[in-house]
């Protein structure tokens, strides 16, 4: 069955397309884009009047938790959440149990994703065995098995010499090295941003420097090794500036930030809501503004979710004991649209940072709607309003800091390889 998306605003920044048109999908590929494509009996029509038809969104930073933490999330529920959030491709981080540091685990994930997954899953392999920061993994094997990048996300590689060797080795396989920038000694026992709010709440603080110091180190190592460094979840003014300078100097660095660093500050922690406990922590307004500016100016290349689901009982704990992380796949589009509304990004920039740019940094042929391209497509109703109600999230993790927020903009169709996997 072919699919005919009628009358939507097709936004395909990679091809510089932004027009109201019809889009025909046949055999899982984009077949034709034209003003009036007639409805034929062999095509199912989707009326996209007033909606945006964009390349399927790509999340370079997701935690699917399986294997090992199925009570938090599974490949099934995580990809359902991805589909509901408009993501057609997601990259899953290796900090599972066991850690994805071997072909066996990578193959397990890909097998599960093929049978139970709703969207494309691209595994990220570990930089070091067990994410312990000591011995680098067999990245050749990982690449062959299907890993598209390496990362020890959840923690940094504290030892600079190990990071250097990892970068050198990864570049041989053209694997981007995704760095979770955190000096754990500086972060100490911190549970939130260090500043006025942490002082008021009596919570131990994590200074901006804990991120900035590592961003600076990794940039220097990228310059030394000529590896592709991708800096995850940028949250500080300092690291935005470091990345800006690195790019000016031609160092191979890309960066992502997440929706929550664009709309929340550490004030959100007031009241000890554990669904605001994340790493890096929510920062101050000054940082939010710098990150927004960095995103607008292209210093930050992509918006990623860092979707980090946890079980309710874990988040019902005292703030100090609750785990770090929040869910994000299903709220990302609405928050990104808020930025469009506020004039931080244009529609094209937003779409580019959630599809074309991530595809480019992962070296995959996705993120555009060229004729003949795989039909991974997201249809968004930019005017639909809804309220975030955690029990209704498809993800097993209900740990969203946006509970009760009135959102504008919702995914109506998520299409993977020409098949509708989610209908809002």
């Amino acid at each position, binding site marked *: 069955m072919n699919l005919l998306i009628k009358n939507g605003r097709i936004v395909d920044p990679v091809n510089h397309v932004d027009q109201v048109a019809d889009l025909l999908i046949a055999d899982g590929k984009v077949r034709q884009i034209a003003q009036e494509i007639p409805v034929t009996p062999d095509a199912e029509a989707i009326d996209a009047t007033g909606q945006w038809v964009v390349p399927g969104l790509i999340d370079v930073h997701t935690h699917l938790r399986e294997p090992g933490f199925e009570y938090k999330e599974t490949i099934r529920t995580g990809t359902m959440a991805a589909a509901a959030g408009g993501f057609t491709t997601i990259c899953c981080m290796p900090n599972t149990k066991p850690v994805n540091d071997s072909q066996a685990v990578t193959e397990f994930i890909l097998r599960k994703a093929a049978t139970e997954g709703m969207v494309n899953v691209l595994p990220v392999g570990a930089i070091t065995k067990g994410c312990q920061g000591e011995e680098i993994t067999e990245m050749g094997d990982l690449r062959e098995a299907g890993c598209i990048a390496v990362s020890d996300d959840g923690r940094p590689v504290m030892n600079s010499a190990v990071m250097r060797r990892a970068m050198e080795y990864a570049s041989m396989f053209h694997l981007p090295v995704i760095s979770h920038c955190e000096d754990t000694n500086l972060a100490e026992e911190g549970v939130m941003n260090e500043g006025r709010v942490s002082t008021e709440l*009596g919570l131990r603080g994590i200074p901006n420097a804990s991120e900035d110091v590592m961003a600076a180190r990794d940039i220097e190592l990228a310059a030394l090794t000529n590896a592709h460094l991708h800096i995850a979840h940028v949250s500080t003014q300092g690291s935005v500036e470091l990345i800006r300078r690195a790019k000016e100097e031609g160092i191979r660095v890309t960066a992502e930030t997440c929706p929550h660093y664009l709309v929340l500050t550490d004030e959100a922690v007031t009241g000890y809501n554990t669904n605001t406990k994340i790493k890096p922590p929510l920062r101050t307004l000054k940082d939010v503004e710098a990150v927004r500016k960095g995103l607008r100016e292209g210093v930050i290349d992509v918006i990623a979710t860092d979707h980090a689901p946890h079980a309710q009982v874990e988040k019902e704990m005292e703030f100090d004991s609750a785990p770090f992380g929040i869910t994000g796949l299903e709220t990302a589009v609405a928050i990104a649209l808020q930025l469009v509304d506020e004039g931080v990004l244009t529609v094209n920039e937003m779409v580019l940072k959630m599809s074309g740019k991530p595809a480019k940094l992962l070296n995959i042929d996705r993120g555009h709607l060229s004729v003949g391209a795989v039909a991974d497509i997201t249809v968004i109703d930019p005017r639909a309003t809804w309220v975030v109600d955690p029990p209704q999230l498809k993800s097993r993790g209900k740990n969203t800091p946006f509970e009760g927020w009135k959102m504008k903009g919702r995914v109506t169709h998520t299409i993977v390889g020409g098949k509708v996997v989610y209908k809002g």
Partner: protein
Amino acid sequence: MELKRKDLLDIKGLDREEIELILDTAESFKEVTGREIKKVPTLRGKTVVNLFFEPSTRTRTSFEIAAKRLSADVINFSVSGSSVSKGETLLDTARNIEAMRADFIIIRHPASGAPHILARNLRSSVINAGDGLHEHPTQALLDMFTIRERKGKIEGLTVAIIGDIAHSRVARSNIYGLTRMGARVRVAGPPALIPAEVETLGVSVFYDMEEALSGADVIMVLRIQLERQGKNYFPTLREFARLYCLTQERAGHAKGDAMIMHPGPVNRGIEISPEVADGLSSVILEQVTNGVAVRMAVLYLLSGSGEI
């Protein structure tokens, strides 16, 4: 005027009228504690649960005496932080206690914000008896009571708080309370023990103790946790004491009638010298006495707040 709240979680959320109400009421209760028969029937039939996740004989006993003098039944639960390791969360523990029909839960917990979890989820009145590094509201109330009793007022006084401000819930509660009541508050200690951006709470920061003490009406010395040593907040207790121990000579920089306070227990010779701790200007024992009256006032006022 009444206290329109179910719980006492912090001083930050109290306005000046509420603080004054508590202090005025405590004055009446201090009269009760001076009677031959120190017990009144006010909270007969009510149950007060002391839920302590950190050992603190002083505070627990003070609340226990306060509750008993109001004729409430008191149950002490001491949880050595191990209930979590048994798989029971704080919320489980609290729900169990509520099922026993506790009217008040007095909680001391090593995690900041733990009392807020209870307050959000339980119908019982929750009183924070110290949470992590956050607040210890009844301690600040008894400190303010003691200052007001001695000095006749709080407004306009200069109060110097000395020592480990960063890890002190007593300091935070006092900073909120004293500034709200119109006192000028100074904090002094080594940089690592001064919390980030503390000036935004309306205090001035000093690293030099004598400067901080100069012209002060009240000196509040904090207890230094001996475990802080070896974590590079300061090199050694010896050097800490050399720089920040309140000696007779240093106290001389404050006003002649300055009063000296300490929330206890005192490390004599580390944060305060024995002569000063036991000297004439010291009100450390009065603080303990006043603690009972203040806690009676809090229990009384919260019991009138509705639900229970």
